[in-house]
């Protein structure tokens, strides 16, 4: 039997397409039947392998194949967003702290607004009393606590400064707030 016959028989044994005439010629060879039987024996020996992977392998594989197993764990996926959120909060807190330190020095008008309730305290009586105080307040174009060069000065509402001086000067009742 020549190599061509062996190749034809091998292809035939594997279920591949072969030329019928060549197959007939190959099968007519004296050792063809033995060759096919030996191919079958080799296949049977190869496939009689009963080995299987170990338990360790299966544990790892099922861990990987379960839903989300191939992905990173939840806590690891949340680390970056949590870190970013923390940094953002720290930044906001620092900014707020810085502002609260700087603002009282820069803008007295806010301080004046803060002072309004205290100034109204002695004048118990509500809006009417407030009205009277307002009328008594002399127009003061240049309050001493407001720097003229302040960039925010032009935009400030008039009543702020107005109330401040009204409570300070005109009520003049015992200096509770001093």
């Amino acid at each position, binding site marked *: 039997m020549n190599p061509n016959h062996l190749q034809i028989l091998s292809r035939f044994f*594997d279920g591949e397409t072969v030329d019928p005439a060549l197959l007939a010629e190959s099968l007519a060879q004296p050792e063809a039947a033995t060759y096919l039987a030996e191919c079958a024996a080799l296949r049977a020996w190869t496939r009689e392998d009963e080995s299987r992977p170990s338990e360790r*392998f299966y544990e790892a594989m099922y861990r990987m*194949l379960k839903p989300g197993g*191939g992905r990173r764990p939840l806590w690891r996926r949340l680390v970056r967003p949590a870190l970013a959120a923390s940094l953002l909060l720290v930044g906001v807190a620092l900014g707020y702290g810085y502002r609260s330190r700087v603002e009282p020095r820069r803008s007295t008008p806010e301080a004046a607004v803060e002072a309004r309730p205290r100034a109204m305290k002695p004048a118990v009586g509500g809006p009417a009393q407030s009205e009277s105080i307002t009328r008594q307040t002399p127009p003061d174009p240049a309050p001493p606590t407001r720097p003229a060069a302040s960039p925010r000065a032009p935009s400030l509402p008039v009543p702020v400064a107005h109330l401040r001086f009204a409570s300070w000067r005109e009520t003049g009742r015992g200096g509770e707030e001093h």
Partner: protein
Amino acid sequence: MAPTDTIAAEIFERHHVAVFRFFRRLTGRPEVAEDLTQEVFLRVVKGVEQYRVMGRETGWLFQIARRVLIDHHRQHLDTTVSLSDTDPEQAAAPAAQVVAFGLQEAVNRLPNAERAAFLLREVGGLTYGEIADVCDTTEDGVSARLWRARARLRQLLSTRLDFLRGPRNQRGTL
């Protein structure tokens, strides 16, 4: 369970034993075969979308196995596990000196390309076309590798195959 996870799990259930045995026969080392099989299915999980497009499951799977094997070969310089080696004489043992072999020893003595083709056919169950894709060769090339592999194995295992041979064929053939 998400669809891709389901598909990957089903592919694993259907083929992991064949892939493991293929690697075990190819490397002769179960622990290496496990690692390689695990790597194959890790890549399956990552690339299961591609499988949907290609459709040919077994061929696709052993394509991945081939790439895993090549990567393993590059990392470990292990000459026993290459599918792409086309030197037909490499690792082939002179049959005349061999008295008796077990199947694994005989398979280990096949040249790399023939061993891969033989195991892809007999363990993986791939067609000639699929083997040709996996091994980057033609179907005729696969056919030649397979009959040569069988011829060598018949020589190496001649003692064990004697029971199939009648008195007229006892001299051995090839």
